[in-house]
């Protein structure tokens, strides 16, 4: 006898973004899940034929609003490698500060959506309330709440004044205390644990084999964080990847929660050591050659492949985003879980479809 088949998405209130899953369900237990993509595909990579390599910064920033800063950073680093540009130390620190702020905002946002996915509305509200402080920081320092647009080839477009740093520190303290206040809810609450522990388990071996990235990978007990590559100013800032061993939705949530606190710490330390100097190097010429490089996005490892032929227009730009890598693990996680847990598990990889499809 055939089972229930239901279309989950693209327009679905628990999914913040359009992705479709054809779920085959038996007695509320998922037996099979077939994904369908393409509802956000724009074909950004091909815009290299219409926009020059400077303009592409603005384009890759808009691959995704949530991780826009790091997209631009990675892209700029790529171009800088191709053009042999030495980025000033201060700019490297500023990039770290903004990128970690972005990570905080992304994680807070996710934590809220995640709470909403298991119907914990007040926690959603709380996280988003806390998050507004980071948005304020973004707006005050970069001029925009979400798409900060601070990167440029050779450095950054904005600077931080000491008073701004001081203010940011203050705001981060607030964020930290408020986060600590709901730490026990996210990590110890009975109902939350009931909804997350043991849901969507990804073993260490599977996580590695299926190419999971970021917190999804670290939640399964593998300490792999691209920040270990020590790009930008990270070589000066000690850093330990956060690892959990559960491999379930709960572990992934815990990783992100702890990473948020860790990022707050990173921003503080980066601001404390912020060196003086220029914020951008002079740029001359056009990029040529090919390179592949990675940064750690909020959702994990993001790889850029850039090939340039010495003209204003890049030859090929390829972005491998963390969610793209996390989709195969997701499809492996879904069978066997309950229908009610589908949103929890789907959100537990922190899917960003606009990143995935570009």
């Amino acid at each position, binding site marked *: *006898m*055939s089972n*229930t088949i*239901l*279309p989950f998405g*693209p*327009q679905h209130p628990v999914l913040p973004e359009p992705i*479709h899953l054809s779920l085959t369900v038996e*007695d509320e237990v998922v037996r099979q899940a*077939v994904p369908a993509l393409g509802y956000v595909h724009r074909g950004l990579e091909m815009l290299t034929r219409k926009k020059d390599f400077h303009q592409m910064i603005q384009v890759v920033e808009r691959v995704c609003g949530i991780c826009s800063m790091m997209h631009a950073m990675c892209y700029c680093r790529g171009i800088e490698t191709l053009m042999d540009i030495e980025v000033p130390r201060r700019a490297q620190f500023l990039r770290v500060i903004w990128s970690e702020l972005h990570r905080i905002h992304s994680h807070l946002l996710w934590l809220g959506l995640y709470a909403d996915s298991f119907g914990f509305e007040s926690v959603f509200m709380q996280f988003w309330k806390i998050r507004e402080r980071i948005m304020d920081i973004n707006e005050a320092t970069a001029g925009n709440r979400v798409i900060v647009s601070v990167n440029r080839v050779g450095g950054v477009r904005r600077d931080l004044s000491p008073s701004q740093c001081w203010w940011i520190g203050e705001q981060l303290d607030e964020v930290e205390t408020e986060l600590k206040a709901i730490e026990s809810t996210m990590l110890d609450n009975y109902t939350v644990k009931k909804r997350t522990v043991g849901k969507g388990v990804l073993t260490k071996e599977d996580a590695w084999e299926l190419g999971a990235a970021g917190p999804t990978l670290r939640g399964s007990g593998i300490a792999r964080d691209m920040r270990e590559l020590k790009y930008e100013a990270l070589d000066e800032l000690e850093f330990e990847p956060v690892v959990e061993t559960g491999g379930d939705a709960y572990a992934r949530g815990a990783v992100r929660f702890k990473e948020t606190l860790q990022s707050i710490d990173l921003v503080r330390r980066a601001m404390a050591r912020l060196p003086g100097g220029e914020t951008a190097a002079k740029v001359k010429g056009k990029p040529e050659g090919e390179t592949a490089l990675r940064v750690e996005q909020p959702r994990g490892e993001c790889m850029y492949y850039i090939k340039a032929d010495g003209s204003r227009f890049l030859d090929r730009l390829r972005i491998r985003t963390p969610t793209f890598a996390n989709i195969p693990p997701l499809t492996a996680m879904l069978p066997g879980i309950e229908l009610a847990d589908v949103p929890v598990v789907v959100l537990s990889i922190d899917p960003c479809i606009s990143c995935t499809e570009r």
Partner: protein
Amino acid sequence: MAAAASALLTTGSILLIGQVPIRSVPAFLSGDLFATAVQAADFALLGLFLFFGIRFKDLLITGLSAAQIAGLFFFEFVILADSHAPAAGLYCDSLSLVMVLLICIAGSLIVLYALPYMQEHERHLKPGKSRNPVFFSLLFVFIAAMNALVLVNDLMLFYFCFEITTLCSFLLIGHDRTRTARENAGTALRINSMGGAVLLLGIVLIYTRLHTLDIQEVIARVQGTGALLIPLGLLCVAGFTKAAQMPFQKWLLGAMVAPTPVSALLHSATMVKAGVYLVIRFAPAFAGTFLSTGVAVCGAFTFLSAAALAVGQSNGKKVLAYSTVSNLGLILACVGINTRSALSAAILLMIFHAVSKALLFLCMGSVEQHIKSRDIEDMRGLFGEMPKVAPIITMGILTMILPPFGMLLGKWMAIESAAGNLFLLFMLAMGSALTVVYWARWAGILMGSDFRGKPRPERLHVLSTISLFSLLGLAILLSVSAPFFHTGLLPGSITGAGGFAPVNGSLANSAGSFAVIPLFLAAAASFLFALAGSGRSSGAETAAPYMSGIAGPENGTYIGPMNRITRSVNRNYYLSAFFGEQRLSGAVNACAGILILLMMGACI
């Protein structure tokens, strides 16, 4: 012929109204000749069972029938050898009357329905030569045996009728002569032989203590003494087997392989009701004893567990079967509670259950002949296909679960009576909730709109139509008139002080009242209101269902991965993790067995 006979039966039974109680010992019943004839028939019957047992190589049947033969032999020729028991003759009080009415009216309607049904059935089955005459004869023998069973006052005669019903059910279940039919007939015989053996043992024990076979006398002498619990307990167990209580439910489930009229008969008016009747009949004898509580607990447990099993079923006939088992459990629970209110609840439930269940089974038969499946999932949107039968089924279902209809009235009475016993109450409460689940789900599925088969014209024979509509009308009519016939028809011993009585169209006792007539008025008013209200909005176009924004061109489809048009199906919501047959059956049977053992153990 058959139609005429059924008409005769019905009128005959109706004529009985107002004649009760009758107690007579007709001459021919007391004659030696008759006694000998019954004796011979008894042995012949048991011999037949033995034969079947040997032929099927079934040790249990063989053993049981051999034991019964030996027991009967011992009883008739050793114990009864010198002291011949005086013949007890016939007894008809209001309880018997209710039963007779039920058997005759429901039975006749079923026979009426069976006429066209069996023709169609034969056409489909194509046996060498028509076996319908045999079939209808058996039906009538069955009905006759049932009538006799509720009318006799002699335990040995009762035993005889009891065994005849066993035989008839065995033959009728095996009617189709397929392998499963044969196997399930075997099961039925096996379990009912157990009942027969237990019954015989009980009778023998009673006789050795009281030296009488007169049922009324037995009851009168035992009532209030708390004596003779073991034989009475044995009688109850015999009743349980007939009424297919857990853990004896298996034969009734198997019985659905038989042609639908047989199932309808077994489930509604005859056979299972024989078991219930037996227990109700002897209820006064063990009122207030531990046995009574035991019966109540066993019944309530059956009510709960069978309802749970029904939730896990997608086979429509099985749902009906489990629901029968479950409702019989409820009835027996009421009998076990053994107060006046509880007994009237039991009798009302028996009446309403018989009518509604007969209706549902017959409808099921039509559906099955029409769509060639008995799976509930295949009945999705049946309304589109069978615009006559589907609403009747839905109505039938509603009469089973919703106020102001009779079944719910009975359930309400049951719960009000059970409120004093915590354990019972829990089981009744949970069971009644489970009942709502499987019925409501089914009703919703029937009336939905995604039937996907090719629509064929719905052909319903006049006789079937008459039968279905009469049953439905009867269910509603009886529900409306419940407060009145309750007092008019039920034994005075039940409806007297402390029991339920009609007050202003409500049925009330000291603990509460069920406003039957006002509710019916309210229901009628709301129905009109609803009709008017929905009539106004019927002008609106029907919108396609929400499919996450990717609904396909056809209702109920969506454009899935790879641009494929996928049909969204909704099936298999039977919570097998909780209520699956495999998951529950073992534990449930074990529990029920233990409960029965406890009950018997406590009698000792």
